[in-house]
């Protein structure tokens, strides 16, 4: 995996909003095919950093390279069609039925997705193809986020970026959808960057975990390394929470008569 050329590279990225520095100089490259989790507390700058990739946020300084090109030099509309984007709010277009929501990316590029392809994408996220004609407000939260993932994948993106994608879902749906995304990542050979504040989710799904604190990258390690105590104090504080929960659960399990 380390032999693959970097698909994404942050080069001294700084983002300031007035007096506030959200991202304070991030250098990092992400290899094609990797599943990277970007973890941190609220306000650590992880979402801001992610949005510099599809230029929803423009860095004050530094640059972001996508497949070797500075994203600032690419037409935003064209760049965003190559980068699948899933976020907590989902943001399905309420006036379009499910099928049109999924097909919007290709439609913008002048390509009409055939119904078979829509059915295939729905099947990919484990939804009934009959849902194609439904309106978003007829779906549950989990179903809506599945449609969001299908929409992000419809244009066969080179990169999938996700901003707290499962944050608003119930734990069961959340686990199922997390596993589904990981499976799709493998099956479709995607490169995935996922922002989450949940270290357990990061450890279970990603092959590499980046930890942000106060706008800086403070740890960069594999889940196994983190569990072994690497990555520094901030990272270990985040790892401690699910670890302790696991220990307590195991203890309760052991006490069972």
């Amino acid at each position, binding site marked *: 995996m380390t032999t693959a050329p970097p698909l994404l590279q942050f080069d001294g990225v700084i983002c300031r909003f007035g007096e506030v520095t959200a991202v304070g100089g991030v250098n990092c490259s992400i290899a094609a095919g990797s599943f990277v989790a970007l973890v941190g507390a609220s306000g650590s700058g992880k979402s801001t950093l992610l949005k510099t990739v*599809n230029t*929803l946020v423009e860095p004050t300084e530094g640059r972001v390279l996508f497949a070797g090109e500075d994203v600032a030099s690419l037409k*935003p*509309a*064209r*760049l*965003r*069609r190559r980068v699948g*984007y899933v*976020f907590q*709010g*989902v*943001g*399905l*277009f*309420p*006036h379009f039925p499910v099928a049109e929501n999924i097909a*919007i*990316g290709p439609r*913008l*590029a002048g390509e009409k997705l055939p119904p078979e392809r829509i059915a295939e994408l729905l099947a990919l996220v484990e939804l009934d193809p009959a849902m194609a004609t439904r309106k978003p407000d007829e779906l549950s939260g989990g179903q809506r986020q599945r449609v969001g993932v299908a*929409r992000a994948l419809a244009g066969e993106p080179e990169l999938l970026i996700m901003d707290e994608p499962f944050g608003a879902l119930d734990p069961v749906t959340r686990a199922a959808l997390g596993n589904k995304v990981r499976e799709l990542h493998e099956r479709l050979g995607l490169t995935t960057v996922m922002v989450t504040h949940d270290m357990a989710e990061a450890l279970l799904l990603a092959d590499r975990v980046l930890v942000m604190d106060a706008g800086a990258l403070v740890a960069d390690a594999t889940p196994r390394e983190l569990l072994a105590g690497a990555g520094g104090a901030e990272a270990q504080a985040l790892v401690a929470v699910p670890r302790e929960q696991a220990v307590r659960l195991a203890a309760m399990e052991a006490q069972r008569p």
Partner: protein
Amino acid sequence: MNDIWEILPGLGDKLAAHVVLSASAIGLAMLIALPMAVWAGRSPLVSRIALSLASLVQTIPALALLALFFPLLLSLRAVFGEGLPTLGFLPALMALTLYALLPILRNAVTAQANLDPEILEAADGVGMTKWQKLTLVEAPLSAPFIMAGIRTASVWTIGAATLATTIGQPSLGDPIFAGLQTQNWALVLAGCVASAGLALAADNLLWVIEVGLAKRSRWMTFGGMGVVALGILAALWAQSTGSDERRIVIASKQFSEQYILAQLIGARLEAVGYAVEYRDGLGSAVVHSAVASSSIDISVDYTGTVWTNYLKREDNPEREVMYETIRDWEWRENGVKVLGRLGFENAYAFAMRSDRAKELGVTSLTDLVAAAPQLTVGGDPEFFERPEWIAVRDAYGLRFAESRNFAPTFMYNALQSGEADVISAYTSDGRIAADKLVVLADPKGALPSYDAMLMLSPRIAGDAGVAKALEPLIGAISVEAMREANLAVDREDGEKVTPKAAAEQLAKSLGRRSGLDLGPLTKKN
């Protein structure tokens, strides 16, 4: 009130004009407000300025806004040439468009501001260009709210369009203004019922479109739009038929005498085969310019009015000199032909109850001087500020014990009840005859003359047929005959008649008195 069911079917052409005017104003307002709202959505400064300006316009009364476009367009003639219309459709369209801007603009701006930010982020995230975001996401999601604004604008505009009558644009305001002046309530009611009905119909149709947009029902949206389009097309069609040959447009200002004379003139022209059209209830200030620009072809104006307001003269020459000066000036400056004087004056004059005049031995203003310090004089609210009063006061040295202001209608009552001994009356007013008042002579000629003149626009100034048809009216209408006709329209008892009927009676009595054959004046249609 059964009359209104007879009047309503005759309002078809006014309705068509009303629909075309309102629809054009709303359409134009949409063309301006919607792009402006998009711009405002991207710049808070533009949003603030645009909304403030649109709100400012709303604070101007619609009647004033309509009237303001007349001087504005007149001054713009310096740029666009003499062909620029200053009355009628253009100024009405501009004023109503301004009026319709606010509700459309405000709803469109609010709709945009309230769009779900997550949906907008998603639109950016899937790679929409600004234009795609606007057309695929922002516009369809804002559409029901924008439509609600258009509905409000439509109801306002259809209501305000009735005021377009005052600047010479035919509308459903024509029967309302005519009815108000002549106290013909059936006519007022018919105009109100028609415009309210139109407003309700438009509101409901646009509501169907709004619901269609909100529910994303193509059937309702396009069905509603189709009916609206059909209505506008029908109005356009109704307007285009029959207007292929230009009619002769006869103006009347907002009082009974003017309505009667317009009907009298119109009947004479129709009797010899001209197609005529009445533009009733015009603001007094616009009639003169409207004739000069041929937006209107015939009006009856008064020498004293033209002398002060248009020649801007302050002196008070002898009656014949004033008339001849005006006649020459109109022809030279405006190309307006003064065909002649009708024979009566509608001037300011001092009137007394006959018993009181006899008791005091007063027949002229000169006689009044000695008695005045014991008397009360009544005038309309502006009279004691007018040059006519100042001229009379100074010429005779009149000093009254008291002067009081009354609304014109109450002035006559005050005279009857003794609250005033002398009033400033209008010489052709029917109540002078009805109340058997004495009009005091003015031996020093201090009061300016107000001879009624027949004015022809430059367009028909050379039309021999028009001149031939109207010449019998010149010098034919005595002040007594005019008073009688005015009284017939103004009275409130059972003998009250319409201006048209009064005009027919007047024509008959003219025929008897002069022995002239004034031709058939009633045209059955």
